[in-house]
Structure formats: structure tokens, C-alpha cells
């Protein structure tokens, strides 16, 4: 068999939930680690080597100067760089603070802000070229597997960015917007989760980020029609992907 591809898993400003999603693939995990040479993964092993990687999965956004250095260094050493999860794509939930002056945030949280060295959160795409994006907070294990298998087979992964509505219809759910007048984010949010929340009667909160070519302004108008005010709408869009160009207008830029 050909040489195993070297893989690295890195964490920047995030919560490690995306890495956990790999661990949580109980049925596939052991088969998966046989196929790759895990070269760098601080959370899983002691001796790590970040040189000459084939694939790097980057979890988390960029919020400190040395993270900028780190991501550029990783980019240099990696053939195929993957933004792994919403934080790496656009900052995800930590990016909500981007609308608050940095000094104000620091003063609320730390008694002595002079010790803190932090900037606004951005996705890694702001600083380096990204080869693939795995959407989700965290990404679904199916999409992670799809990407890794495609990498082994050297084919393009099938990462669809259809809205949650598609998966809702596959499940046979009644539409929460039209039937229950609830402000569901489904029509602009990328699927991949299998519409878990709407299937359980909860509205989609948007954790997979924008779908391909979403019509965010139309959905904002629909929310207004349901009875949400402008503040509510802003909060809804300024959550998992407020920094994405697709939602920026609705998130209040």
C-alpha cells in the first residue's frame, strides 16, 4: 500500500468540539486512524510533528497575533488545508463580540485588561488560502468522513450546501415557519445536520452557516412579518455566522 497520508489537527480559538466530533465516531474511529498517519494532534497524542502534512484540519478562528503566525506556518507546511467547523470559517459564536469594542469586552471580563492580548475573531480564510470548508458547529461526522475518504481516493468530496429545508422535507417535517409561525433559520442555513432540530420541533438556529446563495434579506422580511423586531432579527443572524458576507447586512454591518 502507498504511504499513508500525514494528517494534522490544530486548534486555535475554539472549543475543541469539532475535534471531539472525530473522537465520537465510535464505529469508524479505529478504522479511520489506521488509514492516516496522525502526525500532529495535541488532544490525542504526546509527540507531535507539524512538518510536511498532507492534510491539516484547523479548528477555531484567529484572535491573537501568534495565531496569525501559527496559521501561516501551518499553511506553509501543508498541502491541503481544511477549515474545520464554523469557528475556522468565520469565527462562529466568539465572533459575536466583534460588534463590541474590544476594550469594553476586556474590561467586563478581566480585572486587569493590560495582560490580555486579543483581537477581533476572524476565520482562517482571512489570512491564508483555504482548500476546503467543513461547515457546522460541530460538523457532522458524515461530512468529516466524506472529506477524508475523498482525500484518500483523490476525488472531489460531495459537500452539498443545500438548505436545512431540503433535509426537513426528506424527514417529512411540517414547516415550522408556515405551520407554526416560528422564526426558523432553515431556509438560509446550510444542511448537513439531517435537520435534527426541526425534526424535534425546535427551530433551526443556524449552526451550519449560510447555504450556497442564500436570500437572507427575504428571510429577514419573513421574520418581520411573523412579528420579530429588527433587534431580534439582528441577533438571529449575528450568531454562528454573523461575519459571513452572506449575512453581514442582516447582522448589522
Amino acid at each position, binding site marked *: 500500500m502507498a504511504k499513508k497520508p500525514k494528517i494534522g489537527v490544530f486548534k486555535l480559538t475554539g472549543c475543541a468540539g469539532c475535534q471531539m466530533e472525530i473522537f465520537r465516531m465510535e464505529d469508524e474511529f479505529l478504522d479511520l486512524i489506521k*488509514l492516516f498517519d496522525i502526525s500532529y494532534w495535541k488532544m490525542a497524542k504526546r509527540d507531535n510533528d507539524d512538518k510536511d502534512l498532507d492534510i491539516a484540519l484547523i479548528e477555531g478562528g484567529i484572535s491573537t497575533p501568534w495565531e496569525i503566525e501559527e496559521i501561516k506556518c501551518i499553511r506553509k507546511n501543508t498541502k491541503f488545508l481544511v477549515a474545520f467547523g464554523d469557528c475556522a470559517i468565520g469565527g462562529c459564536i466568539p465572533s459575536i463580540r466583534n460588534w463590541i469594542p474590544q476594550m469594553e469586552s476586556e474590561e467586563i471580563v478581566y480585572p486587569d485588561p493590560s495582560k490580555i492580548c486579543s483581537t477581533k475573531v476572524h476565520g482562517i480564510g482571512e489570512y491564508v488560502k483555504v482548500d476546503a470548508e467543513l461547515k457546522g458547529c460541530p460538523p457532522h461526522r458524515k461530512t468529516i468522513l466524506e472529506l477524508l*475518504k475523498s482525500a484518500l481516493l483523490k476525488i472531489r468530496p460531495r459537500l452539498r450546501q443545500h*438548505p436545512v429545508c*431540503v433535509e426537513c*422535507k426528506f424527514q417529512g417535517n*411540517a414547516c415550522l415557519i*408556515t405551520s407554526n409561525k416560528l422564526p426558523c433559520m432553515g431556509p438560509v442555513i446550510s444542511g448537513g445536520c439531517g435537520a435534527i432540530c426541526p425534526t424535534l420541533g425546535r427551530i433551526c438556529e443556524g449552526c451550519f452557516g449560510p447555504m450556497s446563495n*442564500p*436570500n437572507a434579506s*427575504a428571510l429577514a422580511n419573513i421574520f418581520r412579518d411573523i412579528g420579530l423586531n429588527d433587534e431580534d432579527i439582528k441577533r438571529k443572524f449575528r450568531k454562528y455566522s454573523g461575519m459571513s458576507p452572506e449575512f453581514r447586512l442582516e447582522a448589522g454591518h
Partner: protein
Amino acid sequence: MASYIIDKKDLKILLDKFLKEFKVYGPIKPGLDSSVDEIKSIDDLHLEYKSTIISPKKFFLPPKDTLFEFKIQKGNYEIKEIVNDEKFILFGLHPCDVNAILKLDEFFSGKFKDKYYQNRRKNSIIIALNCTQPGENSFCKSMNAGPFLYKGYDILLTDIDTKYLIEIGSDKGKKIIQGLKLNIASKNDLLKKEKKCKLANKKIKKILDPNWLPKLAEENLDHEIWIDLGERGGVAGSFPCLSCGSCSLVCPTCYCYDIYDTVDLSLKNGSRVRELDSCQLLEYGQVALGGNFRKDRKDRIRHWMFCKFGAAAGSKNSSCVGCGRCIRVCPSKIDITKVAKSLWRKK
């Protein structure tokens, strides 16, 4: 063929006979948000339903369907086809849905025969139920698809107050009710059915003329209504299209699908999957190297509506049956009949 009647309370006898021999699927909830699912006893069956969320096309063209499994062994391929031979009854389908299945039949048994579809179709028995309470969104009458049914059924039920009128439409239908003691319908019962038909027709408020629909599509390719619908303020009280694909996924006649392969972690075993697709999605028109035939939202919604008007793929007949599902499911409240009327008016 002869017609029979059965008391409503005796419907259990009929259903129990079917349950013994077949899997039976029918409406399991009352109202508009019903769904066609497996029926285990008469208590599960809600024949007073108005419409289902997902159309019964899911029994012939499932949202996700494994076509075959493959194995790679020493450079050779081994293929195992997945054939579903389950015989089933669809109980209580409305005329619009039966007509939609007839339209799907045309598509899947044309020049290229889809054996997965045809196999399922062959194993199905359709027991239709005439629609006496059409919903506010239905425009089946205009599309010649309802509210009463004249073809395509194996057995047809009509609610005539305390009884159901049973009409047989095929040999299959005749065979499955053999052995049951049913009373022959009287002339009075048949008259009652006609009366019900007239009443149901009156209840339908949405009226269109289907004859001008294909022409409408041809003449209005560059109409500004499409820009309104795609980007600006919507049409006739609607919001702009979200391109969420709901309309085409619930549509009983939308048949577009995507095919892809998946492999397991050994990278040697896998399967080929057919998944329902929607022309409203950006990925639908995408080809290799990133080209896309329908990049703009307005092009996609226009394409879908033209397809329903009957202008797509050189067709001259509308593929819409007027079930009204797309109107109900659209979060933007886009109403295809209102769009058609606006186009007609602005000509």
C-alpha cells in the same frame, strides 16, 4: 365494472383483509399536515385528511434510495442490485396525487425505463379516495386532476355520508376485494356521488386556464416578474424566493434526482445512491470546473415554474396537478397561480 357500497363502520373489515396480505400505507393524521405512512390498524387511518406534507411519490421515488452495492475484489467489480419486492397498498390517496403518479409513470417509462421506479409501481395497489373537502390552496380542477378521479386507480372510494362507494378500476383491484361480501351500489348511491362531486367542485376557489400556461412560459422568458420574484419584493403579496427547494421537494410531479457513490472506510465496498434533488438549489445547475447554468435565483424559480406550466423539456402539457402543496409550504408565500395570473395580466 360494478360498484359496491360499504358502511363507514365496516371499513375495518376491508382494511383487515388488506392488512393480512399487504403492507398498507395511508394518511396517519387529520388536517393539512398529514403524512402517508404505515397503517397497522383502522385507528391509524385518518381518511378525513386534507393534504399531506410530502407527496406519495416517496413510495416510488424515495428521497434517498440505494440502487446497488459494489465491491472491488482483485481489480474486479462485483455488483449487487437492491431490488425491493414488497407489495404494498396506498390507501386513501387523493385524485391529485394519483394523477401525479400517472404523470411520473410517463416520465419513468418513456424512452428510458427506470426499473427501480417501475418495479415499485408494479408492486403497488392504489386505493384512491375522492376529495370531498378540497383545501383553500387546491386548484386541481383547473389542471384536470381533481377533485374527483376518473382514471389511474385500482379501487376508488367516495364518501357518501354514512357509506363509502367502492368502484373498481382494474383487475388488480377486483382481485383484492374478492371474497368480501359487499352490497351492490344502487342508482341512488351513484347519484349521491355526482352530487358530492358538484359540491366539491364548487369549493375550489383557485381557477386557472391550463391551456395558456405553456404559451405563457414561452413568451415571458425575460419578464421583470422573475427579477421581482428572485431579488426584489416578490409578486402578488409574496416575499422574494428563498430558493430553499421546498416547493419542488413536496411537489408530487417533480422527479429530478442526483446520483452519487459512497464508499466505506475500506475504500473497497460502497453503494450508489439516488437522492432527490431540487432545481431551486445552486448545486443543481453546476457542472465540472465550477460552471453553472442557473446561477441566479430568478433563473431557478423561473425554471421551476416553467416546468410546472409545462414548457420545460419541450413538453406541451402542464406537469402540475394543482395539489397546492407548494403554496402551503413556501415560507415566502409564493403562489404559482398568482404568478401565472400576474404574467397573464401584464402581457
